[in-house]
């Protein structure tokens, strides 16, 4: 039997794909366990960044939430619409400026956000057991560099 490890000589794009799946699978399972299995793509990133204070989480400007996703404005707005429709987010006009919209987590949204954060924390803790702090810095620096490379293309 070969003692060759699966990752030897594996190109970075494949390592990236595998690595992304670690979080995706853990988050997907946590959401399914929490009864929140209809979160659209990228929805987890929108939910996890919002205030989770109970019982009345604060509203965040929808424009900020949309901008932080780094998607096209249309795609981000559609994502927010879907999250509102599926009762993860509540949307209302800002009382101070009725032209602006704000969003906050519903109870269902809070349940989902907590499940997402718990799954992320679990994977973060597992990775901290496997690599050094220097390597973790390299991982973060490398991922950040990918974005810069992509934007240069």
């Amino acid at each position, binding site marked *: 039997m070969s003692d060759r490890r*699966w*990752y030897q000589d*594996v*190109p*970075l*794009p*494949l*390592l*990236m*794909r*595998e*690595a*992304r*799946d*670690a*979080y*995706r*699978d*853990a*988050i*997907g*399972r946590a959401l*399914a366990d929490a009864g929140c299995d209809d979160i659209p793509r*990228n929805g987890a*990133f929108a939910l*996890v960044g919002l205030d989770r204070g109970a019982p009345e989480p604060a509203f965040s400007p929808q424009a900020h939430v949309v901008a932080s996703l*780094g998607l096209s404005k249309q795609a981000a707005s559609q994502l927010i619409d879907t999250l509102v429709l599926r009762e993860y987010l509540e949307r209302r006009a800002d009382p101070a400026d009725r032209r602006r919209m704000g969003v906050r987590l519903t109870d269902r949204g809070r349940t989902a956000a907590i499940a997402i954060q718990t799954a*992320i924390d679990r*994977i*973060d803790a*597992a*990775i901290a057991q*496997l*690599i*050094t702090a*220097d*390597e*973790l*810095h*390299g*991982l*973060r*620096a*490398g*991922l*950040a*560099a*990918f*974005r*810069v*490379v*992509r934007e*240069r*293309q």
Partner: protein
Amino acid sequence: MPAPSIADTYISIPELMRLARGSYKRAIDAQYAARGIDDVPSPGGYVIAYLASGEESIPEMIEGLGIRKHQYNQFVDSLVLRGFITRDVDPDTGRASFALTERGRAAAEAIVEGTRIVDEELERSLSPRDIVGLRRGLIALGEIKRSLPEP
């Protein structure tokens, strides 16, 4: 004082991964376009890359891609129909084997070239220590993924 880099600002690793997504794809798509190729199904490029590297084990490919067998079969069907690979079935064993066509080899060249461009840019942007950390971190995440039960 220089602004802190995105790596030093607190952004979760999955968020960093989301922001990093598409770096190779964009570079490889440009190489496909330069060769007149615009119909490689996603993630068919990975299958082409596997075949180009001599990988013939279908279970290994499926595991590496993190997809299900039926999805794999769909990608392979598309690659055959679009002229990137050929499928031959051994009449004695019934086992299928695959090979790249000329078009498939052109796509494989595009993948290698696009990947090389991004890898070289990364090497210019990062210290050798950070490159090691990036690989180690991704490998660790891959191991964590493999240790999780199937979703």
